[in-house]
């Protein structure tokens, strides 16, 4: 039995999903669509399945079952983010850089994978078909880092609240206004503003730490139970 998402969730997906096909900060539109295709391929990757059950995910060598021509370092990062995110580490982040990925590339890639994960998990949960890969649009990546990046509160550089600009500054101020500070998770993707915007605009219609709950929906405490249980099942502290 297929279920319909809430209108705000559906509208956010309809608005944001096509932007994956546009050039971002570090990756072209074609590469960003490939990141989604690769994330989906990772679900059936035999190497990832073996790594998932190994004591250390670095103890198992082999070749990924791939769907794209992305560089090997990007493919490995995507597959690990999809299939074993709870065992990502600062060592992994450093290794990605040694293999040629810049921090902002890793972060943009991660934000796209996270958005695809949200969309695909929702489709599975509601028994609906997955969204088709978005069409690729022409254009070049911005290749410009935002100002105000510091390594503070994460192993990735993030834009600090006091130096945020534009829409990021507005968002930070909104969060700080209700929570008293800017959550690290709100800043996590800020080194790649295209991914930051893509993910947060897809995520926020589904969850907020304050404000009214959807009419006829779950209670606040039921929502927090689901959120924390999901994180625990994923071995994620968040």
């Amino acid at each position: 039995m297929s279920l319909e998402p809430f209108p705000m969730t559906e509208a956010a997906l309809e608005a944001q999903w096509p932007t994956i096909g546009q050039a971002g900060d570090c990756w072209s539109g074609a590469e960003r669509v490939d990141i989604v295709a690769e994330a989906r391929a990772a679900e059936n990757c035999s190497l990832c399945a073996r790594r998932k059950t190994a004591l250390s995910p670095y103890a198992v060598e082999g070749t990924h079952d791939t769907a794209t021509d992305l560089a090997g370092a990007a493919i490995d990062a995507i597959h690990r983010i999809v299939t074993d995110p709870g065992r990502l580490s600062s060592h992994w982040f450093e290794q990605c850089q040694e293999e040629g990925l810049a921090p902002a590339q890793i972060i943009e890639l991660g934000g796209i994978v996270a958005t695809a994960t949200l969309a695909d998990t929702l489709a599975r949960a509601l028994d609906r078909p997955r969204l088709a890969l978005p069409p690729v649009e022409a254009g070049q990546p911005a290749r410009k880092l935002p100002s105000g990046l510091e390594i503070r509160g994460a192993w990735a550089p993030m834009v600090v609240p006091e130096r945020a600009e534009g829409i990021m500054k507005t968002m930070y101020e909104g969060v700080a206004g209700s929570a008293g500070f800017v959550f690290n998770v709100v800043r996590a993707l800020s080194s790649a503003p295209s991914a930051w915007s893509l993910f947060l605009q897809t995520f926020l219609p589904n969850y907020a730490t304050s404000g009214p709950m959807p009419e006829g929906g779950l209670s606040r405490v039921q929502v927090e139970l689901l959120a924390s249980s999901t994180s625990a099942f994923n071995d994620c502290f968040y």
Partner: protein
Amino acid sequence: MDLDLDLRVVTGMAEHADGGVEHGALLRRLAHAILGHGDLGAARAEAIATLGERRTVHACQIVAAFDGINRVADVAGIRTDPEMGERAAETVATLDIASMASH
């Protein structure tokens, strides 16, 4: 946010399966099934029969949203927010968060 929730329910260690939350065990089963562990069709049907369609959809959206944001947190390696103070320390201890690689 001050909620009356037995945090140990998220790791299956609470004294009562619901963790003090109405339909807590059912919601946890649904989340587990959505994430690929268990019979999703059965869990979804049980949720619809017990909670109704709208609450079931809401539950699905929360699980999907956090399945996504967990990747965000893990990729960037964010730390618990120091501003959360004692609540963060309590959560870290209760859920054994320090043992997680991505923390």
